[in-house]
């Protein structure tokens, strides 16, 4: 193992009712995923403001993933549908601006899908690591 292996920083916004519980289940089942993934609990994926995502990139995140309940399963009935539209448009805009599309992701992970949570995080971390450091949405002032 290299000493200075590049470690991406990944922020995961997880809805309290599904994905956060899914992450807990991954823990219960001792399913590994990189420690680079740091979870922030939100009541619903629809609480995630695009500003939070940009803020994470500004502060040095290399990837941001939002996890919510599967369509139809939202604890609040429709929150994830709004999330889906917001993120589809935001991700498309970031891509339009030339930001690597693999740095953002929206996934549906239920409370029962511990394995999916771990697999998703492994996959996302791998893809982000392959991209290397986030250079296009960074704020150099935060990298000192």
């Amino acid at each position, binding site marked *: 193992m290299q000493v200075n292996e590049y470690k991406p920083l990944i922020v995961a916004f997880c809805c309290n009712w599904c994905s956060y519980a899914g992450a807990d289940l991954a823990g219960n089942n001792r399913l590994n995923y990189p420690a680079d993934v740091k979870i922030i609990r939100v009541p619903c994926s629809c609480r995630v403001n695009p500003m939070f995502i940009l803020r994470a990139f500004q502060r*040095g995140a290399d990837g941001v993933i939002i996890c919510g309940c599967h369509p139809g399963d939202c604890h609040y009935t429709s929150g994830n549908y709004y999330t889906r539209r917001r993120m589809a448009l935001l991700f498309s805009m970031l891509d339009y601006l030339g930001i690597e599309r693999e740095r953002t992701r929206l996934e549906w992970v239920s409370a029962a899908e511990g394995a999916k949570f771990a697999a998703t995080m492994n996959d996302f971390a791998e893809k982000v690591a392959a991209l290397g450091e986030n250079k296009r949405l960074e704020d150099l002032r*935060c990298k*000192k």
Partner: protein
Amino acid sequence: MRKCSLSVLPALFAEIAKSNTLYIPASDNAGGAKFTKWEEGIQYLDTLNTVKSPKDFFFPHTEDLMEFKVTGKNIELFDIREESEDFVVFGVRACDVKSFDILDRVFLSDPVDSYYASRREHGVIISLACTRPAETCFCTTFGIDPATPAGDISAWKTEDALYLQANTQKGEALLSSVEALTEECDSTDVEAQQEKTRKIMQKLPLANLTTDSFGGGKTLELFDSPKWDELSEACLGCGTCTFVCPTCQCYDIKDFNTGNGVIRYRCWDSCMFSEFTKMAHGNSRLTQLERFRQRFMHKLVYYPENNDGLFSCVGCGRCLSKCPISMNIVKVMKALGGEKK
């Protein structure tokens, strides 16, 4: 006075750039011009005014002042200013050159702004006389002769040659460093050009603008004018006029928390912004009328009052062409009696 053929211009730039960072007007790829760092391949653009004035060189849009880190109860300060390098700005018009006088009085009087002072010391201005003023030009209203620009070196450009005249020691030094590329000459051609330009100035649509009804001491007379209401009626409260203005010098000081420390920086501010000079007690000017009035009263009354009658406008005309709603200092002056009959 020295001159060189225009064909020598690239060589001249290259020579200056050897020991200085050189900025020249070049295309901004969006229909305008901006002072651009010269390097091989950068084309000089024969333009009247750049979109943004050259005040950026001495008073940058944003500038880091210091950094501090808090650990426990200790605050550690770091001076993070960038060491100023010597630089030369070529092609500054008479109006913009004059704006440096106005900025100097603000930043170089006690207490001296060391960030500004340091940049001023390191910068050499090569001005350029105007030959084709625009309809929006009104520098003569403020006593500026566009045919005789000041600066460390004054320059005139004719169809085939560039004429250079050093005005300061810094200018002398720079001029002598490029002696090999230039030759001594008389001022005949320059005078002819000046004559022509001055004639055009008299024909400009804004030639009848005067400062007679403005200046120190006019505060009471102008402050409560009913005209401010209609003049400010459509103002959007954006900062366009302020940010393209060569003489606006207001800034805000802000802290940016990087997560590992705090960078204290300053950035341009605009008296047109609703948040301008917001303090603990709130805002000092709550309506757009007050904010609008402040900008023009400052340029036309308060500043001259404090600065021996010097107005804080140089008639460059940038706000005339850039204001989204076409409200500007000329309309304000005319509404308040600034038109020669």
